[in-house]
């Protein structure tokens, strides 16, 4: 699949567009505040050892990542024994082709989809459309955005940027439903629309939250029941699963499951946990007759090889870093111009799709560190964003995809090298202070014409520059000035 280069200009344009969209800002703020509060209240009320649980989660994922090769082989072996067909896809193209070939083989022209970010990552829907095939989204949020031809704005809540009135209008326009705004009524419209699809479809595709190596099973977490319908009502179930989703045992997966749900929505448990261990067996009344699992690499092996960035493969896709990010709730996910937005997106998108394709997204972070603070598996997200900036300026380890193609900013390089020269020489530094003191007044008059400074004063008053600390200190009694 072709990856598109996004320039700084492109980023700036979409950011400006999103920032000025009042409705979007309002919707995002309301939704993010609700998700944050629900999480906080739940953790305070029910999880007395949340920090210990996070530590356990971190340990489970790092343990799995350090033995990923062996775990994947064990998963394949056990899943195959259970009658599941395991496929390996090294990149997006291969994954798409596996799905396409299965559809051809089974003579299927449409598939039903549960929610899956991996399928977004490989641009499956667009691929199938090109081939004249249909993929129908069954997750409520995914259905809404599919109707208006958008991509998910959030990892967990794909249509969180739309409020219920807007959704009512979308359903009226696209599904011919009566205009509604009550969540129950909206659900009813979606349910009626989808039920007929569930009755007739032969192939369903989902993601996978966890793959359990010891049992050869996959575990799907969802809230609406559509995942269960997609994985059981159809004759063929295909699950697309990033290779990093494999853990050793059910015990390990349950630790992650216990962290996932409160982090994602602030609910203690989900309505549906679907554990798929095999296709329908003799005498069983339901379930798919065939189960396929596609293990997707798509540059994850490369990520795994970096001694620092491999930690980002611990992500369990709960989205809580997005919910807590003060940048995400101002601009929304589309402004990141990548499948994965927000803090985790800034860390994994450059690694999955190439640093040179989405480097400007690394600037969409004030390094406030809140994402690292809330991440249930303790991925040091803010630190990794800073480390990726180092890769971007050419001072990293050079293992990130697209590292060599990234064009360096020579003006910034010049400024930073000048900064280091001045900050490592007391005399030079005092000259800088002297300049600040003596030119500070001019800045007040000419700030509009001075690059960088005008970016500051566009929204804030010109600061008071005193820069006379040394003379003040010399006047202070009892201070040793040496």
């Amino acid at each position: 699949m072709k990856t598109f280069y996004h320039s700084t200009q492109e980023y700036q344009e979409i950011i400006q567009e999103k920032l000025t969209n009042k409705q979007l800002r309002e919707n995002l703020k309301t939704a993010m505040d609700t998700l944050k509060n629900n999480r906080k209240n739940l953790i305070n009320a029910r999880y007395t050892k949340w920090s210990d649980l996070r530590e356990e989660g971190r340990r489970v994922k790092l343990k799995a990542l350090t033995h990923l090769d062996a775990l994947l082989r064990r998963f394949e072996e056990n899943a195959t024994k259970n009658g599941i067909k395991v496929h390996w896809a090294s990149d997006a193209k291969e994954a798409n082709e596996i799905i396409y070939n299965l559809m051809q083989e089974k003579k299927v022209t449409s598939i039903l989809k549960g929610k899956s970010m991996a399928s977004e990552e490989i641009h499956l829907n667009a691929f199938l459309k090109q081939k004249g095939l249909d993929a129908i989204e069954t997750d409520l949020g995914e259905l809404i955005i599919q109707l208006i031809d958008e991509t998910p704005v959030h990892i967990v809540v794909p249509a969180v940027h739309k409020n219920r009135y807007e959704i009512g209008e979308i359903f009226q326009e696209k599904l011919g439903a009566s205009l509604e705004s009550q969540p129950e009524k909206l659900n009813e419209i979606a349910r009626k629309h989808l039920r007929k699809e569930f009755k007739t479809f032969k192939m369903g595709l989902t993601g996978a939250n966890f793959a359990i190596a010891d049992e050869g099973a996959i575990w799907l977490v969802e809230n609406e029941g559509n995942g269960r319908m997609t994985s059981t009502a159809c004759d063929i179930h295909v699950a697309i699963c990033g290779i990093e989703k494999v853990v050793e045992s059910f015990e390990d997966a349950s630790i992650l499951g216990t962290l996932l749900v409160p982090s994602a929505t602030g609910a203690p448990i989900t309505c549906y946990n679907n554990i798929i261990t095999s296709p329908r067996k003799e005498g069983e009344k339901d379930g798919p007759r065939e189960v396929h699992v596609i293990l997707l690499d798509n540059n994850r092996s490369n990520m795994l090889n970096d001694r620092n960035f491999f930690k980002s493969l611990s992500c369990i896709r709960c989205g809580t870093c997005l919910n807590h990010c003060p940048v995400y709730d101002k601009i929304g996910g589309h402004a990141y111009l990548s499948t994965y937005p927000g803090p985790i997106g800034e860390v994994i998108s450059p690694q999955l799709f190439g640093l040179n394709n989405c480097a400007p997204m690394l600037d969409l972070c004030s390094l406030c560190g809140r994402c690292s603070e809330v991440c249930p598996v303790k991925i040091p997200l803010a630190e990794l964003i800073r480390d990726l900036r180092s890769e971007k300026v050419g001072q990293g380890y050079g293992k990130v995809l697209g590292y060599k193609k990234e064009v360096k900013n020579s003006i910034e390089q010049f400024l930073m090298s000048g900064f280091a020269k001045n900050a490592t020489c007391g005399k030079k530094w005092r000259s800088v202070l002297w300049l600040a003191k003596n030119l500070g007044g001019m800045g007040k008059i000419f700030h509009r014409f001075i690059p960088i400074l005008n970016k500051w004063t566009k929204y804030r008053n010109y600061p008071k520059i005193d820069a006379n600390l040394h003379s003040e200190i010399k006047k202070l009694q009892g201070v040793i000035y040496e």
Partner: protein
Amino acid sequence: MKVYFFATCLGSIAYSSACVNAIKLLQYAGFEVVFKKDQTCCGQPSYNSGYFEETRKVALYNMDLFNEDYPIVLPSGSCAGMMKHDYCELFEGHPEYQRAKEFSQRVFEVSEFLDLHSDIKLQDKGEPTRITWHSNCHALRVAKCIPSAKKLLRQLKNVTLVELEKEEECCGFGGTFSVKEPEISNAMVMEKVKDIQSRKVDYLVAGDGGCLLNISGKMQKMGLDIKSMHLYDFLAQRIGIN
């Protein structure tokens, strides 16, 4: 006991009164302050932009400069976090790692140092007032020195501290972030100001020059009459040593 005072770059350029007052507070608590005239910056501007090589040079310069075994005390949680925590990260896998680690253990933010290493008693001489407090992200999550700052403020009997609803949310400064992404930064500081306005206070107090520059600059541009003050200016004023 001797302590090094590190004013930081913003302290030297825009907050000299806060530095002077922080020094007076340290003296009031019984410490002898050493001010190195060759002091510069902690290195955050280059570090946060990913220029690690340049930053290592600045860090090594600081390690050489503050070479005696005195505590290094600075009036900024952000820079304290950089020198306490990030210096170690910066030298991970480098021969200077152990040196960075030892150095970092001598670094304290002023309020943290006063709280942990003195028995300072602040006698409030001011009129009753209502203030609110902004927590700097780096001070909160990296240096973890906010509880000390609040403890000092709570010693002031005529000061009512009204907490912000979204105290832990970034004000949008983020060093170079504020000029690299001015539009997003503005959206962030707008929300911070809205929160401050809702508290009906006389002062906004913060312990970090960057955030203060950002929030007060925005409030001035908006023409608001909420005053903003650096923590050490505020404390010194309340106890009458400014």
